[in-house]
């Protein structure tokens, strides 16, 4: 956008414009161009969010394939399909990909796409930072998988315990790749977290007081706070690891005053909240789907919000239960048993409120609800086995066995992936404008449900029968063969169910039934606009009168007027009451975020080989950031 036509534009407001005129002008102001540069410069939260979602699912496929490979290896005892070297890389890639490149990013992706829509605003706060964080995430993921293809795949586990991951026992660049990939993904995750928090705090539609914020948004808000307070821990840890490996520091070297448990403390101080960073957004999806298909507002909104916050706080008091077998003082350990079990209470409150909602509701059994019901079946098992591993003495037996593998797959796949797939079926119409096939959807659900349980339930038994985790094979005499074979078969069924999902998505994109604005007759604001939403989201900013605005106003949606239609403006309001304060201008598209991401990626890459890369890399980074923030004389900049 050059200065000349920027100044040429008058400051017209939406107050008295007709719908056609309004649409034309807002589209011209907010659209993303079709050229390559324009596409790469896009700062539209929907465009970036869509890229985020697709990329995250690509990494889900890669992580899933590595899991299938491992299950094939473990199907029979002493199989020679994969050697230990490749197997260790595979299980490291699986864990790293699923945690850092799929689970967290996909939740953030849905937040990036949906939160502004649910809040009735036109873009996320700091949209350029949003674009930047996507690019950094993409580069980080490509970096990790490219290294794997080059046989430089990390092989010390997604937890990279020192000293195994240290300079003496992990020669070469494998672990450096892992540690630097952490930096990539954490930078992007932290940036997105801040965008979401500010969007929720400042850009809610007028009238959306705290008690009218949708539960989905609440969950994303809590997730963002968890990210802000948890992820610095793993960045500090991975930086220390890189320094140990690159410039010979001694953070983790007992011989020189370091301590290998320091790594575990730092890693799990992040690692346990990480689980809730993944699970809490899923509860938001569950709430949205339950309200829409039980046909009534959520029972106990306030208790649900409070328990979300309680879970957030408690999740920082549990990390030591990953370290019960390291010989810590007994009393301290038992304190963490108490806190770990206590977190069952707020989670219980959530379950009970959802049940109460279904109890009084009129459930409509569409695919999204099926996945939520599957979530109940599976997640409750995972939660209860969590109570078992939280006990110090029991953990001494099941820790680092397949029992734990079963436990956290029940929690993460049951607790996060099932709601996520439900969310895909639920919001696909909004994102693409077309419905997904219900028939394929039902097949998808039942295969996933059966496949998952067949794959992971036997692992509980294998664990108590003494099968440790992270083994590339096992002796025939151990008698673990049959259950492992069963588990592998289940993994294949689960895999097929995801193939069905992919087919359903692809076919529905072109041949799906047209959705219309609000196919499920849901109550929240994202359903008030067209499907797919126009670049400007809402032709006029809604005025919120109820927790389920669309159920409250079925004829005419109350709106606020007076925003400019020729420059990008969003309404910014007070923290609690969302009372309008500013016509905040929202940044225009820019290529600089991409350039900055490239500069940052180059710096991270170089710093694997020499510490000086940080010094030299800071120059292009500084240049690109300056180019990013330097005003271009557009109305958005000058107001």
């Amino acid at each position, binding site marked *: 956008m050059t200065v000349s036509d920027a100044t040429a534009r008058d400051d017209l407001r939406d107050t008295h414009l007709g719908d056609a005129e309004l649409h034309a002008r807002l589209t011209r102001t907010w659209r993303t161009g079709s050229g390559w540069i324009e596409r790469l410069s896009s700062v539209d939260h929907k465009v970036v969010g869509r890229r985020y979602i697709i990329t995250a699912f*690509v990494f889900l496929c890669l992580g899933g394939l590595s899991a299938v490979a491992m299950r094939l290896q473990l199907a029979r005892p002493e199989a020679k399909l994969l050697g230990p070297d490749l197997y260790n890389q595979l299980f490291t890639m699986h864990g790293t990909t699923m945690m850092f490149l799929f689970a967290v990013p996909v939740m953030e992706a849905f937040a990036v796409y949906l939160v502004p829509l649910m809040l009735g605003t036109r873009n996320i706060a700091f949209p350029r930072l949003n674009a930047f964080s996507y690019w950094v995430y993409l580069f980080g993921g490509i970096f990790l998988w490219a290294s794997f293809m*080059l046989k430089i795949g990390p092989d010390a586990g997604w937890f990279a315990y020192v000293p195994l991951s240290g300079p003496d026992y992990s020669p070469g660049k*494998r672990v450096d790749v892992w540690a630097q990939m952490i930096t990539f993904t954490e930078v992007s995750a932290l940036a997105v977290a801040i965008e979401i928090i500010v969007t929720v705090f400042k850009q809610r539609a007028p009238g959306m007081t705290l008690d009218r914020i949708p539960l989905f948004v609440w969950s994303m808000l809590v997730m963002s706070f968890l990210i802000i307070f948890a992820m610095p821990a793993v960045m500090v840890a991975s930086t220390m690891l890189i320094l140990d490996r690159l*410039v010979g520091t001694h953070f983790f070297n007992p011989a020189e005053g370091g301590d290998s448990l320091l790594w575990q403390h730092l890693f799990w101080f992040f690692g346990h909240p990480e689980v809730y960073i993944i699970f809490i957004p899923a509860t938001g999806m569950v709430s949205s789907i339950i309200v829409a298909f039980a046909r009534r507002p959520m029972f106990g909104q306030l208790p649900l919000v409070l328990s979300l916050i309680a879970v957030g706080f408690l999740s920082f008091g549990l990390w030591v239960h990953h370290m019960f077998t390291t010989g810590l003082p007994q009393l301290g350990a038992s304190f963490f048993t108490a806190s770990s079990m206590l977190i069952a209470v707020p989670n219980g409150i959530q379950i009970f409120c959802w049940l109460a909602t279904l109890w009084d509701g009129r459930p409509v059994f569409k695919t999204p609800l099926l996945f939520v019901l599957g979530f109940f079946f599976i997640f409750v098992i995972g939660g209860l086995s969590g109570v078992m591993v939280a006990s110090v003495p029991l953990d001494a037996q099941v820790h680092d066995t397949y029992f734990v593998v079963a436990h956290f797959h029940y929690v993460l796949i049951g607790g996060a992936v099932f709601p996520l797939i439900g969310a895909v079926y639920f919001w696909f119409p909004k994102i693409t404008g077309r419905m997904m096939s219900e028939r394929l959807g039902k097949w998808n659900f039942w295969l996933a449900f059966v496949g998952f349980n067949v794959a992971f339930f036997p692992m509980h038994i294998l664990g108590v029968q003494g099968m440790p985790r992270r083994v590339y094979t096992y002796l025939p005499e151990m008698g673990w063969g049959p259950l492992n074979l069963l588990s592998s078969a289940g993994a294949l069924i689960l895999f097929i169910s995801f193939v069905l999902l992919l087919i359903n998505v692809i076919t529905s994109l072109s041949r799906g039934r047209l959705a219309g604005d609000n196919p499920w007759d849901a109550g929240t604001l994202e359903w008030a606009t067209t499907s797919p939403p126009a670049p400007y989201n809402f032709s006029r900013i809604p005025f919120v009168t109820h927790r389920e605005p669309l159920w409250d106003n079925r004829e005419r949606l109350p709106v606020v007027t007076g925003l400019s239609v020729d420059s990008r403006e969003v309404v910014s309001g007070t923290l609690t009451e969302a009372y309008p304060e500013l016509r905040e201008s929202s940044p225009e598209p820019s290529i600089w975020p991409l350039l900055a991401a490239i500069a940052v990626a180059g710096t991270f890459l170089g710093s694997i080989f020499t510490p000086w890369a940080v010094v030299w890399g800071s120059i292009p980074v500084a240049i690109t950031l300056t180019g990013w923030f330097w005003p271009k004389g557009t109305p958005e900049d000058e107001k």
Partner: protein
Amino acid sequence: MKRELTIALLFVLLLAGCEREDRPLRSDPVLNENREAIALATNSPGPTGPVEYKSGTRGEYEKVAFHVSQGKKLFTWYNCSGCHANGGGGSGPALMDDVWIYGSAIENIAASIREGRPNGMPSFRGKVPEDQIWQIAAYVRALGGFVSSDVASSRHDQIYAHEGEARLPSPSPRTSNQPGLAQPK
């Protein structure tokens, strides 16, 4: 579009895949049998210094981080420090200085380990498998500061007399890996 880009990039990198991170666990028995014939360098280096030999793939060991780190383990395990004191030198010559009586090329070092040298260096022919000899030789090269810093280790998990091989000073140009340049002090 992102996806295509990603996959394309991965594919290109795959084609360009380098072997430096390859970790051969099972040494080739054939290679083990036919030891590369390297004559002993003359005991008194003489004016031209020792002859430096070039050989096949084993010369590449010093480019592979895995081999260098294996060599480092074996150097400790086989008690090379008994005489060479972590490279500092004791009853045996130092391995971190610029003096390479029998040549600083990896082939010469491997030969010294395999065949032994006068005045105390025993022959490990038959006692140490061939590929391990080359791994140790690669590590000795690292001690001499000959291998690139992204291959050698940055520090040790135990207390060591010297810092990690990756950060040892490179040899002065006088004794860079050129035939006939190594002069005894």
